[in-house]
């Protein structure tokens, strides 16, 4: 029996333009087992895709784009979480 599972890929870029360089990445794989230890913190120095556009060309669909910020006067030079984070998904088939 064939079933579908969702994979989610987060790619953080150097700026909001979709072909700009990936600087952080995380895969959450709904097709993996509970004891699967792929995509742990610190397990890779090279991103799976160099940009969001590269991932789209490999079949990933962008399902969330970062909102462009409104800079509040007096706090415009503060930094926090990585601002240009895209969420992508694809479905894969598993055989149960």
């Amino acid at each position: 029996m064939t079933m579908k599972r969702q994979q989610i890929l987060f790619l953080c870029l150097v700026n909001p333009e979709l072909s700009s360089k990936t600087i952080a990445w995380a895969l959450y794989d709904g097709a993996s087992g509970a004891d699967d230890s792929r995509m742990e913190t610190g397990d890779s120095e090279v991103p799976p895709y160099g940009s969001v556009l590269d991932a789209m060309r490999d079949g990933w669909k962008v399902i969330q784009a970062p909102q462009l910020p409104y800079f509040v006067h007096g706090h415009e030079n503060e930094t926090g979480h990585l601002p240009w984070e895209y969420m992508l998904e694809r479905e894969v088939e598993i055989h149960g």
Partner: protein
Amino acid sequence: MVSTANSHLLDARQMARFCSDGLIVLEDLVPQELNEAVYHDELTVQPQGYEFWNSSEAIRRVFDLPQVKGVIESLIGRNYVYDHSFLHTVKPHISKSQNWHVDSGVMNPNPHNFDIQAFYFAHDTPIEMGPTLVLPGSQLRRANYWSISRYKNIEGQRHLAAKAGTIAFMHQDIWHCAQPNRTDRTRYVFKIRLNAVEQQRNLFNTDGYDDPEVREILKTHYPWYGSDWQKEYYQRLEFWRFLVGNDYIWKKR
């Protein structure tokens, strides 16, 4: 109170490295004989965890060494307060890693006033043994506890692979996480948090704080900054002005 000899204080280049990276890693700070005494205690004494500080006379000697106290006093002054400590362990053949985090659920209202966390390695800790993973340059960003836990890998992350006798002194807000241990030996690292209770200005050897070489260190660029690079540099210079007690150095008017 006896003042620490000037020769044991951090110099301006070392302090600039801390200002830029949020940590300074000092190798060979603890003599091998003492490393072996601490490692022996890590293997044998009880209780461990939060109580290792009280269980091991050797670990207390480490933090009484003049070269260790000199670093601590450079960062948080002589009137620091013990917050807590913990002997962190990762058992052999653990393939799961910890998520990225900052060590507080309460936002630090002013990152210029910071606690330090010292990570001491009493035994050699190569990458396969799971030394702590840190993100240099993350200490001035506004994040708290597990709010950064969705990330897995970030360009510029650094595995703190260390030789015995190394201590990494970290700003309280640096992003970090524990790593898998793929060896057949338990990995130990002793962490101690110390609170600053005085203004952290001019505490180190400030000679040459405005040298061009120091400014180059302060310009250290991490690829993961992306479009935030200039904001990071702006904040870092503000931090440096605070640390050296000069509110106007390299300031555009």
